[in-house]
């Protein structure tokens, strides 16, 4: 590993409390290993495209990207748009995390090609249930990874 970091999940979230609660739920579902949390969309793009402080640090792309919809500087939709328009990133599953099920946001997210979305519930228990469902993508990506090795 040394200077190179293998990450499975890239999680972009501007709210530290939301991030902490979500990451706890992910750990409970055994999805929390090798997770990288970034605080906004720009940083997420730096990670994905190997720019700035993340240059030369990542050998492979993350297997799953979790994006908060509303973030400062670059929001989730823009990150999603870049992922879907970049050849090396296009295949990565993207799950959008939203505060509400406002139709216009969801419609745009689906237009840009998200794989799923989670409305962040207030009830932590519900959040855990929702995060557990992410396991589907996790399993799918593992299989894909194995077949390509």
């Amino acid at each position, binding site marked *: 590993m040394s200077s190179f970091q293998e990450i499975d999940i890239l999680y972009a979230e501007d*709210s530290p*409390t*939301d991030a*902490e*609660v979500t990451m*706890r739920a992910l750990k409970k579902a055994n999805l929390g290993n090798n997770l990288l949390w970034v605080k906004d969309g720009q940083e997420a793009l730096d990670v994905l495209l190997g720019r700035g402080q993340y240059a030369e640090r990542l050998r492979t792309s993350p297997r799953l990207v979790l994006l908060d919809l*509303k973030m400062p500087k670059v929001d989730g939709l823009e990150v999603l748009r870049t992922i879907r328009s970049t050849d090396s990133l296009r295949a990565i599953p993207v799950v959008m995390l939203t*505060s*509400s099920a*406002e139709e216009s946001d969801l419609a745009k997210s689906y237009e840009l090609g998200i794989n799923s979305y989670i409305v*962040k*519930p*207030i*009830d*932590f*228990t519900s*959040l855990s249930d929702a995060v557990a469902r992410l396991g589907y993508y996790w399993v799918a990506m593992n299989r894909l990874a194995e077949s390509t090795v």
Partner: protein
Amino acid sequence: MNSVEALILQNSNPTARRWMPENFVVIAFSVAVILILVLAVVGARALTRSTLTVRWVEHTHAVLHKVEQVRASLSDIRTDVQAYVITGDEKYLTRREQAVSIVLSSTRDLQELTTDNPRQQARLAELGRAIRETVDQMTMLVVLRQTDGFNAAHAIFASGSMEEHTNKVDQVQKAVISEETDLLDQRTRDELDSRHSLIFVAGALIALVIATVFFGFARLRAELIARQRLALSCATQQKFLEAVLEHLPALVCVKDPKSLEIVTMNRAMERWFGRPREQLIGRATAEFFSSDDARSSLETDREALAQLDVVVNPVDIRTAPNGTRVTMYTRKIAVRDVGGQPLFILSISDDISAKVADEQRIRELNATLEQQKADLQAANRELESFSYSVSHDLRSPLRAIDGFSLMLLEDYGAQLDAEAHRYLTTIRAGTQRMGQLIDDLLAFSRIGRQPLKDMPVDMEKLAQDAAAFAVREGSGTAPRIVVSSLPAARGDPSLLQQVWQNLIGNAVKYSSKVSTPLVEVAARQEGDEVVYSVRDNGAGFDMQFAHKLFGVFQRLHGQDEFPGTGVGLAIVHRIITRHSGRIWAESVPGHGATFQFAVRRAITA
């Protein structure tokens, strides 16, 4: 006015030009005059022939007279000669020479009289010879008596040669007389014949003249009557047209194309000018206008004269003689004769001041409305971004409170006593309820903003789905839900689905504490509407609070009794209102509640 009349007449009876009975009458009377002339000629000719006939009769009589004279003179001569032969007395010879000259001159006269008749000439020649022979014989007898005495002369008598001559003379004379008499008869007969045919022709001509004159007169009379009628109907029509013109609400004015003076006008125009038409007719309209108005009026007059089309001056602002500014809608046209020469200028105006003012007012109102619409749209956008902030920013701290409370319970639960556990559980319940309130409020605001579909909706299916959902989600005693046959409605299917879910959900919730909960869903048609009803046998409510039922966050039951946010019925009310429908409820506390709503019926094909 004459040209106007001419035009009206011309227009009202276009067949008049072809209808010319004068020609017929002229022809009839010309025929009569010609017939009379023919009659005169025939008559004159007949008269001439008649005169000739009379002359011929006289001529015949003259011939007969001369023949008689010759015969008598010859007879005298013979008597005298006989008397001399018998007596030898010279005195009987005294008349002889005179008689002979009479005979000879008469014979010449006869010949002259009958120069036109060769047969008579021949006979007369023969007669002349016979007379000369007779006269010669008489002369010879006289000589013989003088020389040879009585016996010699008497022997001549006795020989009968005297008789012979005399007879011949008589014979020829008779033939001449007979010829003349025959001619006279012939001429008299011809005269009679021609008189008959004259009478016939004249009679026929007179009859024709009478018939022609009579026929012409009949046509003339019919024409006179028709003209009288036409004149009457023209007068009526003219009065009618004048009345129509007079009472037209538009301002009508007729001008002379050369002088541009007013020829006539109607009452509306008279009123507008504010003076009797006697003061206006014969003067130019421009005299009564301000200089600007006069110029523009003159321009449109000239324009109308220069073209065949109507000149329209849609917005013509003029100062009325009473000083007010009015907006006129004026149309002018030059009315022309068949040759294209303008007869007059017809000007029709409407005072559209009120209409223009109304239009201006409508424009202003529209501008105000546009402004209000823009304001509303801006307010809506603000509300939308506010809703978004509420959902995103307000929920984030709530998640933190709930999440960290749970972490505290999970990670440090062992170190906390029961009371601390209860506090943390209450904090979590409070945050979750607040989250629910925010979600419901957002749902309520979304219903007001989302566009409304308008299509037939299968209400029975929606009610059944909602019933199944309510049973699945409900707690407590599972109710019996009876859904009757429901007619289709018109509206937005997803919003009406929400209505059924909320109403049936409520019915299930509020009847969950009775021993045998029953929910009945039914409908009835009322005109173009369907009234749907949801009845339960649950807790019901006090009707004195019925007005609070549909308000946001208004509840008639305690949270511990029946949980809820107080938004469900507000949402239902909002959806029904957006469908232009009505909703109401009836209840007796402890005996259940009935919610009814009316929406438009779907027209079934």
